[in-house]
């Protein structure tokens, strides 16, 4: 049992649905300051939705199943992308000029698990390489 996807990017104000396809019930919650919520137990083929108005990271868990964890990155920029398993994200259509590059990962070794970097976006394509360190996921003893 696990949330899928593990990380979701959502624009601010968007409503995120948490459909339950398992044959058992879940109680989804988040204590994150940007959008705490709690969905009472709901069963199979039921879905609950939560809208996140504030920008921030919403850490989502299930009160029944400790190993279930997911993160919703609520942002107000349209230029947000999730990297692939290879760690590469190709963001298109960013207007040239000054910009702030933010890299976030739930286990990133950085304050708030996020790195900020001011960049100047050129007219053409650019490649920005960032090396990051990751913490081991918590509760290693339990398989996620």
């Amino acid at each position: 049992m696990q949330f899928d996807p593990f990380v979701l990017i959502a624009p601010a104000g968007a409503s995120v649905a948490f459909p339950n396809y398992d044959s058992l019930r879940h109680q989804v919650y988040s204590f994150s300051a940007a959008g705490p919520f709690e969905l009472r137990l709901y069963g199979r083929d039921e879905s609950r939705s939560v809208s996140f108005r504030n920008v921030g990271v919403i850490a989502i868990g299930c009160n029944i199943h400790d190993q279930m964890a997911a993160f919703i990155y609520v942002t107000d920029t349209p230029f947000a992308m999730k990297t692939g398993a290879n760690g590469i994200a190709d963001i298109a259509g960013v207007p040239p000029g000054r910009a702030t590059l933010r890299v976030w990962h739930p286990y990133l070794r950085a304050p708030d698990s996020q790195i900020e970097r001011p960049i100047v976006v050129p007219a053409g394509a650019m490649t920005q390489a960032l090396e990051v360190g990751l913490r081991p996921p918590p509760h290693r003893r339990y398989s996620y």
Partner: protein
Amino acid sequence: MFKRLRTKLTVLYAGLFCIVLVLISAAAYAVAARQAQSQVRDQLVATGAVFDRLWQVRFAGLQEGAELSVRDYGFRQAVATGDAATVRSALQNLHRRLGADLVVLVPPEGGAINSEEESPLPLSAALKTALENDDALTGVLEVDGVLHQAVTAPVLAPNLLGWVVVGQRLDQEEMRSLEQLSPIPLHAVALSRLDGVWSAPGERLSVRDRGAVSTFINRAMSDRSARPESINVRGGRAVALVRPLRTLDGSRAVLFLSYPLALALANYRSLFEALIAVGVLGLALVAIGTWLLARGITRPISELETAARDLEAGEYAPVRVETSDEIARLALSFNAMIDAIKLRERRITDLALTDSETLLPNRLALERRLKTQDARDRRVFVAAIGIDRFEQVRSAIGYAHANALIARIGERLVHLSSRAPMGRLATDVLGVAFLAGDEGDARRRIAALQAKLEQPLSLDGQVVDIDVSVGVAAVEGEEAHVDRASIALDQARKARVKLAFFDSDSYGDPARNLSLMGEMRRALSRGEIRLAHQPKLDLRARRITGVEALVRWTHPSRGPLPPDLFISMAEETGNIRALTEFVLHQAVEDQSKLAAAGWPLAMSVNISGRLIGDRHFAKHAIEAVRGARHGFCFEITETAVIDNPKLALENIELFAAHSVQISIDDYGSGLSSLAYLKQLPAHELKIDKLFIQHLTDSKRDALLVRSTVDLAHGLGLKVTAEGVEQPACIALLAAMGCDMAQGYLISRPVPVHELLSILEDTHRMDFLGHTALRAGGEAA
């Protein structure tokens, strides 16, 4: 070191026993200590293993509680709020629920939120680093100087909200409960390293012990030793085991298990107590046994020693013999020796008190009995009974018979008074002690005794007449009574009486006179002894032609000493030679002095009978008179020649050969043997004054003198008359043809300077005037 064999043996054996005992005890202790140590090591290892398991169980419990807690939805919600008060209340809740000593939340950004206090706990940065690498840690954590057994658990929602650290204090109480689990009462303490020193809060280790423990732990850690080792701490030797404890923050902590060896050895205490008891008992037995044995040996030896001392002191006490061992045999031999010595001594005493020739008691026996004589109201007298003419009797009847004779006389004495002390005093003298009321009584008793003793004796059918003279001395004080009785006997014989009592006046003081001899040399050198010359008158020439040199001694304290006394003493003591040599030298000197004054006189010197046989003296005398200017004459009594005629005659001939005239002195007083008169190469004969003194009164003496003068003249000798005191005598002598006269009429002996004045006194010889005619007439 020890004067007594008993002590020596006892100390020796007890000492040996002690040494053996100490060795045994040491060996036993060593074995026991080894055993105890090895036991303790095993126990420590076992306990260490138990502790490990227990440790894990406790961790598991803590972990379970912590994990359950951090999954609690409410708790996570509270933590997620980020509100410190809320978080703290949540932690307090957890604290109560888990009953843990330590409940802390460590936020991801660092710091710590305590369940109890607002002030953040001084958690080390290392802990957070460790948590970031592994969020479910177990281990020891030091908080505020207190070690805790702690676990961590992450608070996930599901992102990491922080870590909860839950711990139990590892305080002494906790450790005691751990110790309870061990089968041996060991001491457990958890120690952490702080500033290089291993310490535990509340654990009161002394500075020295802390150092020792630290060193011990450091070594064990570096060796990764899991074996118990021994360590010296204040309480004594201990065996200790160090088990490293995993810590939460990577710092060092250990579990230190120790067990004092003394406690381990306590199990063996009964063994040691038994050893000591056996040792003390054994020592006492050995000491008593040795002492008794040694006493058994030494007591007879001591008794022997005492007996030997007694024997030395003259006491014959036999030793008691109780056993039958070597010492007893020694004692028996000793007793036998005592008996033998006693017997021998008695025999020696008997011999010493017996006259061997007659088997009568001897002088010593008599003297001994005199000492114990009890006189009561009467006086004790000692009589020395001398057998007269014993030498003649002995030569008549033979030696053996003479002894038998003495024995028989002794028997008579015993018969007369069986209990009277008696003894043989000399060859012909028997002594007997008797009691008498006074001297008269004693005289009567002795007379009666004499009468009985003088009865003729029959010896082997031969009748022997016996005459006895008796000297008696009264026993008074401690004087030598027997000696005095003997002297009294001599006095009786001299006086030709049958009985004499000791006369001390006539005896004089021999001891005092004897001391004179010691003074003689001094007297010679100091001039106390001088010569006096008596002139000799030549009756034909009517003048003094010679002198007789006489010796005089004026003693500084006793005055003039009688010449007879010191000359006879000198003869008896061997001083006569020195005296005579002095006289010779002095005479030579005086002669030359007189000659220098115009008086060339012949010098006569008396030569003692003791010296006449002395060859060395003879040579010396010749040498002395060799330088004499005028005639020298040696006057010799004829009795002097009798003792050793051969040597005497040789010397006299030697004198004559060296122009020394020889004069026969005191002729007529002795034996006046014609045989000697014939042999002696004499020049002069001096008629003894005994014949001259009564010459004018006694026809008999006159006849003797006249015939002697004729006899001497017939033999070619000149005649000198001695002791001339009256002028009539001179005349008679001149008429008889006597050549020389000497006597007080002419002059007493005088010193040389006085002699000179006499010689020069022309009237001195006036008395010759009356007699000259008669003498001349007679001679004509």
